[in-house]
């Protein structure tokens, strides 16, 4: 533990960098995937194109992508933008499939009812389809979050500063504990992100509780739903 304890400042600093680098790609892949998922549900050809290109994008090895990106988007080789764009590409690759599935998971009868009530197509998307796609979107973004946090580490190879540094440095200097500290810190970050995403989901989707919980709540009839959200 001695290495870890005497380098807590470094670990914390790298963790903050790690979060900074991971956050934007996660948010971007969520936002970009929604229109793509929507398009995928317009017709079968578009769906095939989008799903396939998602899988293809994900198979691009990360190292060459980091190297090629500066040439393609015209950034400097050691720019963090390279990493953020690359991670967003991977995130979108995973997330657009989830988004397509999420939007098609919404019950047809509910969409039909919403139309019959007099929702315009636009209002129906934002106020009915997107919220109801929420649970599946949430599952998708949790996967993206974990994989993005893992992938950020690879960024050290192109000069990015994050928890990956501990793997590289620890390996070069033969300090096993430094590598271990990097792994544990990454895991904790991934866990933290996951918990935050789940909490956001609970706040935004109070209607999406499992049947069992609502039933036991109804039976005890003591805890009103509102208190539960705050807790």
């Amino acid at each position, binding site marked *: 533990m001695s290495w870890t304890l005497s380098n807590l400042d470094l670990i914390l600093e790298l963790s903050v960098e790690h979060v900074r680098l991971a956050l934007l790609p996660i948010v971007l892949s969520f936002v970009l995937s929604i229109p793509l998922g929507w398009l995928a549900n317009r017709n079968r050809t578009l769906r095939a194109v989008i799903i396939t290109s998602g899988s293809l994008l994900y198979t691009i090895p990360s190292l060459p992508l980091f190297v090629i990106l500066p040439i393609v988007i015209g950034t400097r080789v050691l720019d963090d933008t390279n990493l953020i764009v690359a991670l967003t590409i991977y995130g979108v690759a995973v997330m657009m499939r989830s988004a397509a599935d999420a939007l098609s998971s919404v019950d047809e009868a*509910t969409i039909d009812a919403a139309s*019959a009530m*007099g929702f315009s197509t636009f209002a129906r998307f934002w106020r009915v389809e997107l919220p109801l796609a929420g649970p599946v979107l949430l599952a998708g973004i949790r996967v993206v979050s974990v994989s993005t946090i893992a992938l950020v580490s690879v960024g050290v190879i192109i000069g990015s500063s994050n928890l990956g540094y501990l793997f590289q440095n620890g390996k070069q200097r033969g300090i096993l504990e430094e590598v271990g500290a990097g792994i544990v810190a990454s895991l904790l970050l991934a866990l933290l992100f996951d918990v935050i995403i789940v909490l956001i989901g609970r706040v935004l989707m109070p*209607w999406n509780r499992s049947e069992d919980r609502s039933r036991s709540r109804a039976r005890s009839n003591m805890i009103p*739903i509102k208190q539960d959200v705050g807790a």
Partner: protein
Amino acid sequence: MIEFRSVTKQFPDGTVAVNEFSFTLPSEKATVFVGSSGCGKTTILRMINRMIEPTSGQILIDGVDIQTQNKVELRRSIGYVLQAAGLLPHRKVLDNIATVPVLKGVPRAAARSAALDLLDTVGLDRSLADKYPRQLSGGQQQRVGVARALASDPNILLMDEPFGAVDPIVRAELQLELNRLQRDLGKTIVFVTHDIDEAFTLADQVVIFKKGGIIAQAGTPAEILAHPADEFVETFIGSDKGKRDLRLQKREGDNGLTLVVDKDGRPAGILADSRDSEAGSSSPGAPVQGAAAS
């Protein structure tokens, strides 16, 4: 008044669901479309709020061709109750009821407080206001569906097999409730069902369909029961088996009670009046056997 002028609907796969349908539905009356599945009754209903567009023909509401109206505005002006309620699962009961007024631009708070009154109208406890639809029973959901349809006080109420998914006891309850509501509200109701008894219970006017949206017979329940137009109608309403031709019969030793018997002499029930006069002095029972006292 809803007027159909030779309306035809052919689906892309070639099926002609409705062929040259012409009919007028009177205002402020309940018209019930009844027929077996695939007879085109739901298609006709859904053409009224343009959820389905006719291939040819015209539909007029109070003399205005609905094709000239904005689709979304038209739908907001017509109440619609669906099978299995069709409530929005992510919205609380109160917000579900307030859906259409909010879409029409009524401030949320005002729409919600009006929705609270509607809970009373449809006989639901106000404590349900903050529940989500799936926390409700099927019958309660259906009542919320009716409240939602009434929220913007539309003249027309379309009801597409609204009670098809609830159990028979709740169903009978909802039917009587709807009759009570209709007495107070006087909406132009178009109700689709495949249950002829439901049709007779609710209708001012019953329209019995054959396949392809062809009218087998239209009339008041009494007219249809008294004079079924053809064998198809007879079979459909069950009068071919003699169940609908009832007679009064007094038998020896019945203490003056009057039986109601069908064509073959099978007792269908008792004439409540005769029991009341018999039991008037001894037991103050409910006046009508079997039916809920209102």
